[in-house]
């Protein structure tokens, strides 16, 4: 069995990234290397991984075999081994497939988008490194190996967000992302360590953990579950750690498309699904997850309705969609969640790339109210965007509809009506703000200046088309039985399926209708307000929503500034004025004592004789006392 190929799925992008990095340094230091070389290596890597993954996929069809490959003993302390192991089961291989596929397309897109950037090679170095880490995250067979990938994607996203590092606020955005992720990682590590001590007795890979999970006391399980979920929150930008995601849009658009829409942010969802054996045992934690998801979804959707920066809108919508996914996984419908991850990857990547195309065409203009009328100027972009928007809004038969419908079905079916209501409201809002964007950008007519549009070359448009296909038909693999399809994704991920919910068919129909209705309502509101949208001046928003509920400011005021104050207090007050004072004060007191003593050295013979007399008398008195 050619299990070692699993390692190569990760290894190929890793090696190519290493090669790219060295070549980049070489090219900036010694002799320029033409971009085409970088392009070939960089773009081919994910597709190669995709091809290998496909072979495994094909082997898996029909049977529920799990491929394991232990490359080497990563860490062996005291007879306890942790292996650098790779595991391909249906979940991970499924993830790998669309990560490599969408990732490859985005590489392709980036090769066109970045072609005039002088850091071209560096960009692909980061991109491949990111793909490698993401694949490691997905394919890892133990939490700790997963954590390596987990952090790898984090640092890649840091470097890619602060890609244009000359501008300070980009780097700050990167820092923000990294720190927020780190807060999550803190939870992850704590969870991992706890798991190690309570369940790691006979092996730390998922299989053994799953086996020994039952023996863990329930409160510890809850603790682990919550801590893990903190990690997921950090990665997937849910309340309260979502603040980094909007700022992360500072990076180049392909980065936003790949990392902050399609792959990395969904790692949290994947992790919850991966640890389903844990979360199955603690449904109440699952419920918390679902509520957090629902709140985040609603919250982000509300904020998105007032944003003017096209990428920010998409960022918030990403967060909102992630909220949907967490609703699903929280309620045990892991397969549903993954399904939405899958579809979302397509249409969200597509949206970002379309937005990127528009931005490029308009010479890096990002405010939607400075755009308009793109429909005629870039029809292809328009149509692809339209498809994607329909998909995200949840209009059948586009991809988004099925997954979202299943999520809401899960919510309703497991009796969490509050969550369900929030989901529906979110759906309305989603449709509203997405079409608002679409109308303003493509139908609106306040892009007056007649500058020549920036041309879009093949490598940008082609991925658009492919992804458009994806977002049109990706949903079809999950058509519910109800509509005569048989839910392939559900069958494929049968182990991750929430078997415990049974909803009557007519209820299901009603729910579907509600969803479609919600979408239509949203679209019609958007149509009313923004179709044929024409205003001479860019609207200035104020208020809570426009200011994102002041969350950033609150964090800054109540956390960052406080810590800075403490830091200054410690390093400039405590250390200098207290601890060092003690040390130096001691030495100074010695000097002072010396100066005092030296008064006795007054060079007066009679005084010296007198001191002698005193000394003698003291000693003699002592002797007499002793001899008594």
């Amino acid at each position, binding site marked *: 069995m050619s299990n070692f190929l699993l390692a190569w799925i990760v290894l190929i992008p890793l090696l190519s990234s290493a090669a790219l990095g060295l070549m980049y340094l070489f090219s900036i230091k010694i002799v320029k290397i033409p971009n085409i070389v970088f392009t070939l290596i960089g773009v081919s890597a994910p597709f190669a991984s995709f091809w290998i993954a496909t072979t495994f996929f094909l082997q898996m069809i029909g049977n529920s075999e799990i491929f394991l490959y232990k490359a080497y003993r990563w860490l062996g302390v005291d007879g306890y081994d942790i292996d650098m192991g790779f595991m391909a089961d249906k979940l991970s291989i499924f993830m790998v497939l669309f990560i490599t596929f969408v990732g490859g397309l985005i590489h392709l897109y980036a090769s066109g988008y970045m072609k005039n950037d002088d850091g071209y090679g560096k960009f692909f170095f980061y991109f491949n490194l990111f793909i490698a880490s993401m694949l490691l995250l997905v394919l890892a067979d133990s939490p700790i190996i997963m954590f390596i990938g987990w952090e790898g994607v984090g640092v890649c996203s840091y470097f890619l967000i602060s890609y244009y590092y000359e501008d300070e606020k980009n780097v700050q955005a990167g820092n923000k992302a990294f720190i927020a992720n780190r807060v999550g990682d803190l939870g992850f590590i704590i969870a991992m360590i706890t798991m190690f001590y309570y369940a790691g007795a006979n092996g730390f890979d998922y299989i053994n953990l799953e086996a020994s999970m039952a023996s863990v006391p329930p409160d510890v399980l809850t603790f682990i579950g919550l801590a893990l979920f903190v990690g997921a929150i950090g990665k997937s930008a849910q309340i309260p750690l979502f603040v980094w995601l909007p700022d992360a849009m500072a990076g180049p658009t392909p980065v936003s498309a790949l990392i902050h829409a399609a792959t990395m942010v969904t790692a949290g969802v994947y992790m919850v699904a991966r640890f389903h054996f844990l979360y199955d045992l603690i449904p109440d934690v699952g419920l918390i997850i679902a509520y957090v998801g629902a709140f985040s979804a609603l919250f982000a959707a509300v904020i998105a309705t007032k944003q003017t920066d096209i990428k920010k809108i998409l960022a918030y919508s990403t967060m909102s969609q992630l909220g949907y996914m967490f609703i699903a996984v929280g309620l045990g419908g892991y397969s549903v969640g993954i399904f939405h991850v899958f579809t979302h990857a397509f249409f969200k990547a597509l949206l970002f790339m379309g937005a990127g195309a528009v931005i490029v065409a308009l010479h890096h203009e990002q405010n939607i109210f400075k755009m308009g009328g793109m429909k005629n100027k870039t029809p292809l972009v328009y149509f692809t965007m339209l498809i994607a928007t329909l998909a995200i809004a949840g209009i059948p038969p586009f991809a988004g509809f099925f997954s979202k419908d299943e999520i809401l079905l899960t919510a309703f079916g497991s009796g969490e009506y509050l969550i369900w209501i929030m989901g529906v409201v979110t759906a309305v809002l989603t449709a509203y703000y997405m079409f608002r964007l679409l109308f303003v950008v493509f139908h609106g007519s306040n892009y007056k200046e007649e500058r020549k549009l920036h041309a879009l070359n093949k490598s940008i448009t082609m991925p658009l088309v492919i992804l458009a296909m994806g977002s049109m038909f990706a949903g079809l693999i999950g058509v519910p039985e109800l509509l005569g399809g048989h839910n392939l994704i559900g069958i494929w991920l049968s182990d991750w399926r929430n078997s415990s919910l049974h909803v009557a068919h007519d209820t299901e129909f009603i729910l579907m209708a509600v969803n479609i209705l919600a979408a239509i309502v949203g679209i019609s509101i958007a149509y009313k307000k923004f179709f044929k949208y024409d205003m001479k001046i860019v609207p200035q928003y104020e208020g809570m929503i426009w200011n994102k509920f002041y969350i950033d400011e609150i964090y800054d005021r109540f956390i960052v500034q406080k810590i800075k104050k403490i830091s200054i207090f410690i390093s400039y007050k405590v250390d200098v004025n207290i601890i060092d004072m003690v040390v130096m004060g001691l030495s100074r007191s010695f000097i002072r004592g010396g100066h005092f003593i030296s008064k006795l050295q007054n*060079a007066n*013979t*009679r005084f010296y*004789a*007198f001191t002698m*007399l005193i000394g003698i008398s003291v000693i003699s008195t002592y002797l007499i006392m002793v001899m008594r």
Partner: protein
Amino acid sequence: MQEKEALMADSLLSYIALAMILFSIGFLGVIARKNIFIVYMSIELMLNAINLIFIALGRYYESMQPQVIALIIIAIAAAEAAVFLSLIVVLYRKKKSLNSDVFNVLNQKDAAHE
């Protein structure tokens, strides 16, 4: 016989008491008097007090040894006297004064000079 012993002991004690008084006077002189001549004389006084003790002891023990010691001490005192007097001369030449308190260039306040 016994009375003699006792008598001698008493007289010895009185001698020693006298010697100690002289000794203390000498010491006080060294401390109290400014004039270096008198300081010198006080020291001589102390030495002689000790001579007195030795001689009294010699009489008490009826041995010659203390007498010899006393002589030796006198000799040493003479040697010291030589040095002392010459120093007094030099000091007087320098400061035109016999007040011992004026010789204080070595005090800590303005140390660091040669």
